[in-house]
Protein backbone atom coordinates (compact mmCIF):
# COMPACT_ATOMS: atom_id res chain seq x y z
CA UNK A 1 0.00 0.00 0.00
CA UNK A 2 1.57 3.23 -1.06
CA UNK A 3 1.10 6.64 0.38
CA UNK A 4 1.11 9.56 -2.01
CA UNK A 5 2.14 12.97 -0.87
CA UNK A 6 -0.48 15.57 -1.62
CA UNK A 7 -0.25 19.33 -1.43
CA UNK A 8 -3.67 20.19 -2.88
CA UNK A 9 -4.82 21.56 0.49
CA UNK A 10 -2.11 24.18 0.42
CA UNK A 11 -4.07 26.68 -1.72
CA UNK A 12 -6.86 27.03 0.84
CA UNK A 13 -4.44 26.99 3.75
CA UNK A 14 -2.17 29.79 2.54
CA UNK A 15 -4.14 32.46 4.40
CA UNK A 16 -4.01 30.61 7.73
CA UNK A 17 -0.30 29.88 7.33
CA UNK A 18 0.45 33.52 6.48
CA UNK A 19 -1.53 34.66 9.52
CA UNK A 20 0.35 32.21 11.73
CA UNK A 21 3.70 33.36 10.39
CA UNK A 22 2.72 36.98 11.01
CA UNK A 23 1.83 36.12 14.63
CA UNK A 24 5.18 34.37 15.09
CA UNK A 25 6.97 37.47 13.76
CA UNK A 26 4.88 39.66 16.07
CA UNK A 27 5.75 37.50 19.10
CA UNK A 28 9.46 37.56 18.41
CA UNK A 29 9.43 41.29 17.66
CA UNK A 30 7.83 42.06 21.05
CA UNK A 31 10.19 39.63 22.78
CA UNK A 32 13.27 41.11 21.14
CA UNK A 33 12.44 44.69 22.15
CA UNK A 34 11.33 43.83 25.70
CA UNK A 35 14.04 41.22 26.20
CA UNK A 36 16.88 43.52 25.18
CA UNK A 37 15.57 46.37 27.36
CA UNK A 38 15.21 44.05 30.36
CA UNK A 39 18.62 42.51 29.83
CA UNK A 40 20.25 45.96 29.75
CA UNK A 41 18.61 46.68 33.12
CA UNK A 42 19.57 43.27 34.51
CA UNK A 43 23.13 43.49 33.21
CA UNK A 44 23.41 46.84 34.99
CA UNK A 45 21.88 45.22 38.11
CA UNK A 46 24.45 42.41 37.92
CA UNK A 47 27.13 45.12 38.21
CA UNK A 48 25.42 47.28 40.80
CA UNK A 49 26.90 48.02 44.20
CA UNK A 50 23.92 46.44 45.99
CA UNK A 51 24.70 42.80 46.81
CA UNK A 52 21.03 41.83 47.01
CA UNK A 53 20.39 43.05 43.49
CA UNK A 54 23.44 41.21 42.14
CA UNK A 55 22.31 38.00 43.84
CA UNK A 56 18.72 38.33 42.62
CA UNK A 57 19.77 38.69 38.99
CA UNK A 58 22.21 35.78 39.32
CA UNK A 59 19.48 33.50 40.75
CA UNK A 60 17.04 34.53 38.01
CA UNK A 61 19.58 33.76 35.29
CA UNK A 62 20.46 30.34 36.76
CA UNK A 63 16.83 29.28 37.30
CA UNK A 64 15.75 30.19 33.76
CA UNK A 65 18.82 28.71 32.09
CA UNK A 66 18.52 25.39 33.90
CA UNK A 67 14.82 24.67 33.30
CA UNK A 68 12.99 23.97 30.02
CA UNK A 69 11.13 26.79 28.29
CA UNK A 70 8.01 24.63 28.00
CA UNK A 71 7.91 24.16 31.79
CA UNK A 72 8.35 27.91 32.33
CA UNK A 73 5.49 28.53 29.91
CA UNK A 74 3.18 26.05 31.68
CA UNK A 75 4.13 27.47 35.05
CA UNK A 76 3.24 30.99 33.92
CA UNK A 77 0.07 30.05 32.06
CA UNK A 78 -1.36 27.31 34.32
CA UNK A 79 0.43 27.94 37.61
CA UNK A 80 0.13 31.69 38.11
CA UNK A 81 -3.72 31.78 38.00
CA UNK A 82 -3.72 29.97 41.37
CA UNK A 83 -1.98 33.08 42.74
CA UNK A 84 -4.70 35.19 41.17
CA UNK A 85 -2.65 36.24 38.14
CA UNK A 86 -4.64 35.21 35.07
CA UNK A 87 -3.03 35.95 31.73
CA UNK A 88 -4.24 35.92 28.16
CA UNK A 89 -2.40 33.17 26.17
CA UNK A 90 -0.63 35.70 23.98
CA UNK A 91 0.44 37.78 27.00
CA UNK A 92 1.62 34.65 28.80
CA UNK A 93 3.57 33.67 25.68
CA UNK A 94 5.29 37.05 25.36
CA UNK A 95 6.03 37.10 29.10
CA UNK A 96 7.53 33.60 29.06
CA UNK A 97 9.55 34.29 25.91
CA UNK A 98 10.84 37.60 27.24
CA UNK A 99 11.85 36.16 30.62
CA UNK A 100 13.51 33.20 28.92
CA UNK A 101 15.45 35.21 26.37
CA UNK A 102 16.50 37.90 28.84
CA UNK A 103 18.26 35.27 30.98
CA UNK A 104 20.55 34.49 28.06
CA UNK A 105 20.91 38.04 26.74
CA UNK A 106 21.68 39.46 30.20
CA UNK A 107 24.97 37.57 30.09
CA UNK A 108 25.61 38.64 26.50
CA UNK A 109 24.88 42.32 27.18
CA UNK A 110 26.99 42.14 30.33
CA UNK A 111 29.94 40.76 28.37
CA UNK A 112 29.51 43.62 25.90
CA UNK A 113 29.50 46.23 28.66
CA UNK A 114 32.66 44.74 30.13
CA UNK A 115 34.32 44.84 26.71
CA UNK A 116 34.13 48.63 26.43
CA UNK A 117 37.45 50.03 27.68
CA UNK A 118 37.28 52.06 30.87
CA UNK A 119 39.00 54.96 29.15
CA UNK A 120 35.86 55.56 27.09
CA UNK A 121 33.73 56.47 30.08
CA UNK A 122 36.59 58.39 31.70
CA UNK A 123 36.97 60.44 28.52
CA UNK A 124 33.22 61.08 28.41
CA UNK A 125 33.19 62.22 32.04
CA UNK A 126 36.15 64.46 31.36
CA UNK A 127 34.08 66.11 28.61
CA UNK A 128 31.44 66.88 31.23
CA UNK A 129 28.73 64.35 30.24
CA UNK A 130 26.29 63.19 32.89
CA UNK A 131 26.34 59.51 33.99
CA UNK A 132 23.15 58.69 32.04
CA UNK A 133 24.52 60.33 28.89
CA UNK A 134 27.77 58.42 29.27
CA UNK A 135 25.87 55.11 29.47
CA UNK A 136 23.36 55.76 26.68
CA UNK A 137 25.57 57.63 24.23
CA UNK A 138 29.05 56.22 24.81
CA UNK A 139 29.01 52.82 26.47
CA UNK A 140 25.84 51.23 25.12
CA UNK A 141 26.41 51.82 21.37
CA UNK A 142 29.90 50.35 21.59
CA UNK A 143 28.71 47.40 23.66
CA UNK A 144 25.85 46.67 21.23
CA UNK A 145 28.27 46.61 18.34
CA UNK A 146 30.41 43.96 20.03
CA UNK A 147 27.50 41.71 21.02
CA UNK A 148 25.35 42.15 17.93
CA UNK A 149 26.15 38.75 16.33
CA UNK A 150 25.52 36.87 19.61
CA UNK A 151 22.29 38.80 20.14
CA UNK A 152 21.13 37.93 16.62
CA UNK A 153 21.71 34.22 17.22
CA UNK A 154 19.84 34.35 20.50
CA UNK A 155 16.83 36.05 18.89
CA UNK A 156 16.71 33.41 16.14
CA UNK A 157 16.97 30.59 18.69
CA UNK A 158 14.05 32.17 20.58
CA UNK A 159 12.03 32.48 17.37
CA UNK A 160 12.47 28.75 16.73
CA UNK A 161 11.65 27.92 20.31
CA UNK A 162 8.47 30.01 20.10
CA UNK A 163 6.86 27.10 18.20
CA UNK A 164 6.30 25.68 21.68
CA UNK A 165 3.74 28.36 22.62
CA UNK A 166 1.31 26.57 20.28
CA UNK A 167 0.78 24.36 23.34
CA UNK A 168 -1.16 27.10 25.13
CA UNK A 169 -3.21 27.78 22.00
CA UNK A 170 -1.53 30.97 20.81
CA UNK A 171 -2.38 31.02 17.11
CA UNK A 172 1.12 31.29 15.74
CA UNK A 173 2.68 29.28 12.96
CA UNK A 174 2.99 25.93 14.75
CA UNK A 175 -0.53 26.15 16.11
CA UNK A 176 -1.94 26.89 12.66
CA UNK A 177 -0.12 23.75 11.52
CA UNK A 178 -1.74 21.73 14.31
CA UNK A 179 -5.19 22.99 13.28
CA UNK A 180 -4.57 22.41 9.57
CA UNK A 181 -3.35 18.85 9.94
CA UNK A 182 -6.35 18.01 12.10
CA UNK A 183 -8.62 19.21 9.29
CA UNK A 184 -6.81 17.88 6.23
CA UNK A 185 -5.26 14.68 7.72
CA UNK A 186 -2.12 15.61 5.80
CA UNK A 187 0.07 15.72 8.91
CA UNK A 188 3.47 15.14 7.31
CA UNK A 189 2.93 17.53 4.42
CA UNK A 190 1.59 20.25 6.73
CA UNK A 191 4.52 20.08 9.15
CA UNK A 192 6.93 19.80 6.22
CA UNK A 193 5.66 23.03 4.66
CA UNK A 194 5.60 24.83 8.01
CA UNK A 195 9.12 23.64 8.86
CA UNK A 196 10.34 25.11 5.58
CA UNK A 197 8.64 28.40 6.47
CA UNK A 198 10.45 28.44 9.82
CA UNK A 199 13.71 27.79 7.97
CA UNK A 200 12.96 30.69 5.62
CA UNK A 201 12.05 32.93 8.55
CA UNK A 202 15.28 32.19 10.41
CA UNK A 203 17.39 32.83 7.30
CA UNK A 204 15.50 36.02 6.50
CA UNK A 205 15.86 37.25 10.08
CA UNK A 206 19.61 36.69 10.04
CA UNK A 207 19.94 38.71 6.79
CA UNK A 208 17.69 41.44 8.15
CA UNK A 209 19.68 41.73 11.37
CA UNK A 210 23.02 41.86 9.56
CA UNK A 211 21.75 44.53 7.15
CA UNK A 212 20.00 46.47 9.92
CA UNK A 213 23.05 46.23 12.17
CA UNK A 214 25.26 47.71 9.43
CA UNK A 215 22.79 50.56 8.98
CA UNK A 216 22.43 51.45 12.63
CA UNK A 217 25.71 50.48 14.24
CA UNK A 218 27.98 51.15 11.30
CA UNK A 219 30.43 48.93 9.44
CA UNK A 220 32.21 46.02 11.03
CA UNK A 221 29.07 44.25 12.23
CA UNK A 222 28.87 40.73 10.86
Amino acid at each position, binding site marked *: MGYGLSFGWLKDAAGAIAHGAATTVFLIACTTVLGVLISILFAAGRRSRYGVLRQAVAVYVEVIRNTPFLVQLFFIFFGLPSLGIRLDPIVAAILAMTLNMAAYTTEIVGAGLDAVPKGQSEAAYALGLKPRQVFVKIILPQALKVIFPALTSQVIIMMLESAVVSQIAVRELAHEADLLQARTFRSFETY*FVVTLIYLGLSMAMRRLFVAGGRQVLGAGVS
Partner: protein
Amino acid sequence: MIEFTFWDILRNLIFATRWTVLLSIVAFVGGAAVGLAILAARIAERPWLRRFGSGYIALFQGTPLLMQLFLMFFGLPMLGFRIEPWTAAALGLTLYASAYLAEIWRGGVEALPRGQWDAGASLGLHRFQELRLVILPQAFAITRPAAVGFLVQLIKSTALTSIIGFEELLRTANAINNATFEPFTVYGLVAVIFFVLCYPLTQYARMLERKTPAH
Protein backbone atom coordinates in the same frame (compact mmCIF):
# COMPACT_ATOMS: atom_id res chain seq x y z
CA MET B 1 -11.64 9.68 43.57
CA ILE B 2 -7.95 9.23 44.36
CA GLU B 3 -6.42 11.74 46.74
CA PHE B 4 -2.91 12.93 45.86
CA THR B 5 -0.76 14.19 48.69
CA PHE B 6 2.32 16.30 48.04
CA TRP B 7 4.48 13.21 48.49
CA ASP B 8 2.42 11.22 45.99
CA ILE B 9 2.94 13.95 43.42
CA LEU B 10 6.67 14.16 44.12
CA ARG B 11 7.11 10.36 44.06
CA ASN B 12 5.31 10.03 40.73
CA LEU B 13 7.33 12.85 39.21
CA ILE B 14 10.63 11.40 40.41
CA PHE B 15 9.62 8.04 38.99
CA ALA B 16 8.93 9.64 35.62
CA THR B 17 12.29 11.42 35.70
CA ARG B 18 14.10 8.18 34.82
CA TRP B 19 12.56 8.38 31.33
CA THR B 20 13.82 11.94 30.94
CA VAL B 21 17.29 10.83 32.03
CA LEU B 22 17.25 7.73 29.81
CA LEU B 23 16.11 9.70 26.76
CA SER B 24 18.81 12.31 27.39
CA ILE B 25 21.52 9.64 27.56
CA VAL B 26 20.29 7.80 24.46
CA ALA B 27 20.04 11.04 22.47
CA PHE B 28 23.48 12.24 23.61
CA VAL B 29 25.23 8.95 22.85
CA GLY B 30 23.35 8.49 19.58
CA GLY B 31 23.89 12.12 18.70
CA ALA B 32 27.63 11.78 19.35
CA ALA B 33 27.82 8.77 17.00
CA VAL B 34 25.83 10.38 14.18
CA GLY B 35 27.51 13.72 14.90
CA LEU B 36 30.94 12.13 14.26
CA ALA B 37 29.77 11.05 10.81
CA ILE B 38 28.40 14.53 10.09
CA LEU B 39 31.66 16.06 11.34
CA ALA B 40 33.62 13.76 9.02
CA ALA B 41 31.45 14.95 6.11
CA ARG B 42 31.72 18.59 7.17
CA ILE B 43 35.53 18.58 7.15
CA ALA B 44 35.96 16.12 4.26
CA GLU B 45 38.11 16.94 1.24
CA ARG B 46 35.31 16.46 -1.29
CA PRO B 47 33.23 19.63 -1.75
CA TRP B 48 29.87 17.83 -2.10
CA LEU B 49 30.41 16.06 1.23
CA ARG B 50 31.22 19.39 2.89
CA ARG B 51 28.06 20.91 1.41
CA PHE B 52 26.01 17.97 2.67
CA GLY B 53 27.48 18.42 6.16
CA SER B 54 26.86 22.15 6.34
CA GLY B 55 23.35 21.76 4.84
CA TYR B 56 22.48 19.11 7.44
CA ILE B 57 23.67 21.34 10.27
CA ALA B 58 21.90 24.43 8.89
CA LEU B 59 18.66 22.47 8.49
CA PHE B 60 18.58 21.22 12.07
CA GLN B 61 19.79 24.50 13.59
CA GLY B 62 17.41 26.58 11.48
CA THR B 63 14.12 24.81 12.24
CA PRO B 64 12.21 24.30 15.50
CA LEU B 65 12.88 21.03 17.34
CA LEU B 66 9.13 20.65 17.82
CA MET B 67 8.62 20.56 14.03
CA GLN B 68 11.47 18.05 13.67
CA LEU B 69 9.78 15.80 16.21
CA PHE B 70 6.42 16.09 14.44
CA LEU B 71 8.01 15.27 11.07
CA MET B 72 9.67 12.25 12.65
CA PHE B 73 6.43 11.15 14.32
CA PHE B 74 4.25 11.50 11.21
CA GLY B 75 6.87 10.91 8.53
CA LEU B 76 8.43 7.60 9.57
CA PRO B 77 5.14 5.65 9.44
CA MET B 78 4.85 6.74 5.81
CA LEU B 79 8.12 4.94 5.09
CA GLY B 80 6.59 1.80 6.58
CA PHE B 81 8.08 1.93 10.07
CA ARG B 82 5.81 1.25 12.99
CA ILE B 83 6.59 4.20 15.14
CA GLU B 84 5.88 4.84 18.78
CA PRO B 85 6.45 8.01 20.79
CA TRP B 86 9.65 6.56 22.28
CA THR B 87 11.18 5.78 18.86
CA ALA B 88 10.20 9.15 17.38
CA ALA B 89 11.51 10.97 20.46
CA ALA B 90 14.83 9.10 20.59
CA LEU B 91 15.42 9.36 16.84
CA GLY B 92 14.37 13.00 16.62
CA LEU B 93 16.57 14.11 19.51
CA THR B 94 19.49 12.00 18.22
CA LEU B 95 19.47 13.77 14.86
CA TYR B 96 19.01 17.14 16.56
CA ALA B 97 21.96 16.46 18.89
CA SER B 98 24.13 15.20 16.03
CA ALA B 99 23.86 18.52 14.18
CA TYR B 100 24.79 20.57 17.24
CA LEU B 101 27.65 18.28 18.34
CA ALA B 102 29.07 18.19 14.81
CA GLU B 103 29.08 21.98 14.73
CA ILE B 104 30.70 22.22 18.18
CA TRP B 105 33.46 19.75 17.24
CA ARG B 106 34.01 21.45 13.88
CA GLY B 107 34.80 24.59 15.84
CA GLY B 108 37.39 22.58 17.77
CA VAL B 109 38.94 21.08 14.63
CA GLU B 110 39.24 24.49 12.99
CA ALA B 111 40.76 26.03 16.12
CA LEU B 112 43.73 23.67 15.84
CA PRO B 113 46.77 25.04 14.07
CA ARG B 114 47.40 23.80 10.53
CA GLY B 115 50.73 22.40 11.73
CA GLN B 116 48.95 19.59 13.58
CA TRP B 117 47.75 18.16 10.25
CA ASP B 118 51.18 18.65 8.70
CA ALA B 119 52.86 16.96 11.64
CA GLY B 120 50.49 14.01 11.29
CA ALA B 121 51.19 13.79 7.57
CA SER B 122 54.95 13.98 8.10
CA LEU B 123 54.69 10.94 10.39
CA GLY B 124 53.17 9.08 7.44
CA LEU B 125 49.65 8.93 8.82
CA HIS B 126 46.65 8.59 6.52
CA ARG B 127 43.90 11.19 6.78
CA PHE B 128 41.76 8.85 8.84
CA GLN B 129 44.65 8.13 11.23
CA GLU B 130 45.45 11.83 11.45
CA LEU B 131 41.89 12.49 12.50
CA ARG B 132 41.72 9.63 14.96
CA LEU B 133 45.15 10.01 16.57
CA VAL B 134 46.01 13.69 16.28
CA ILE B 135 43.13 16.00 15.44
CA LEU B 136 40.00 14.63 17.14
CA PRO B 137 41.47 14.01 20.62
CA GLN B 138 42.57 17.65 20.77
CA ALA B 139 39.34 18.94 19.22
CA PHE B 140 37.27 16.99 21.77
CA ALA B 141 39.40 18.28 24.64
CA ILE B 142 39.06 21.96 23.80
CA THR B 143 35.31 21.71 23.05
CA ARG B 144 34.38 19.74 26.16
CA PRO B 145 32.81 22.74 27.96
CA ALA B 146 30.61 23.43 24.94
CA ALA B 147 29.62 19.77 24.66
CA VAL B 148 28.61 19.61 28.33
CA GLY B 149 26.71 22.87 27.85
CA PHE B 150 24.87 21.28 24.96
CA LEU B 151 23.98 18.28 27.13
CA VAL B 152 22.14 20.70 29.43
CA GLN B 153 20.25 22.06 26.42
CA LEU B 154 19.45 18.49 25.34
CA ILE B 155 18.06 17.54 28.76
CA LYS B 156 15.80 20.58 28.66
CA SER B 157 14.76 19.70 25.11
CA THR B 158 13.45 16.29 26.18
CA ALA B 159 10.46 18.16 27.67
CA LEU B 160 9.23 18.71 24.10
CA THR B 161 8.76 14.99 23.56
CA SER B 162 5.81 15.16 25.95
CA ILE B 163 3.96 16.85 23.08
CA ILE B 164 4.30 13.84 20.78
CA GLY B 165 3.13 11.58 23.60
CA PHE B 166 6.30 10.27 25.20
CA GLU B 167 5.70 9.62 28.91
CA GLU B 168 8.57 11.58 30.43
CA LEU B 169 8.59 14.02 33.31
CA LEU B 170 6.47 16.80 31.83
CA ARG B 171 3.80 14.51 30.37
CA THR B 172 3.43 12.78 33.72
CA ALA B 173 3.14 16.23 35.29
CA ASN B 174 0.34 17.14 32.87
CA ALA B 175 -1.54 13.99 33.83
CA ILE B 176 -1.06 14.63 37.57
CA ASN B 177 -2.16 18.22 37.10
CA ASN B 178 -5.33 17.10 35.37
CA ALA B 179 -6.12 14.89 38.36
CA THR B 180 -5.13 17.28 41.17
CA PHE B 181 -5.69 20.79 39.71
CA GLU B 182 -2.56 21.99 41.49
CA PRO B 183 -0.58 23.43 38.57
CA PHE B 184 1.51 25.70 40.79
CA THR B 185 2.85 22.80 42.85
CA VAL B 186 3.13 20.33 39.98
CA TYR B 187 4.92 22.56 37.45
CA GLY B 188 6.97 24.12 40.23
CA LEU B 189 8.23 20.66 41.20
CA VAL B 190 8.96 19.82 37.55
CA ALA B 191 11.05 22.97 37.31
CA VAL B 192 12.91 22.00 40.50
CA ILE B 193 13.65 18.50 39.18
CA PHE B 194 14.96 19.84 35.87
CA PHE B 195 17.06 22.34 37.79
CA VAL B 196 18.55 19.59 39.95
CA LEU B 197 19.45 17.64 36.80
CA CYS B 198 20.88 20.59 34.87
CA TYR B 199 22.54 22.86 37.41
CA PRO B 200 25.43 20.53 38.36
CA LEU B 201 26.20 20.04 34.67
CA THR B 202 26.13 23.80 34.09
CA GLN B 203 28.59 24.24 36.95
CA TYR B 204 30.75 21.42 35.60
CA ALA B 205 30.81 23.09 32.17
CA ARG B 206 31.84 26.34 33.81
CA MET B 207 34.61 24.60 35.74
CA LEU B 208 35.90 22.96 32.54
CA GLU B 209 35.84 26.33 30.82
CA ARG B 210 38.08 27.79 33.48
CA LYS B 211 40.49 24.86 33.20
CA THR B 212 40.63 24.57 29.42
CA PRO B 213 43.37 26.77 28.00
CA ALA B 214 41.99 29.30 25.56
CA HIS B 215 42.92 28.64 21.94
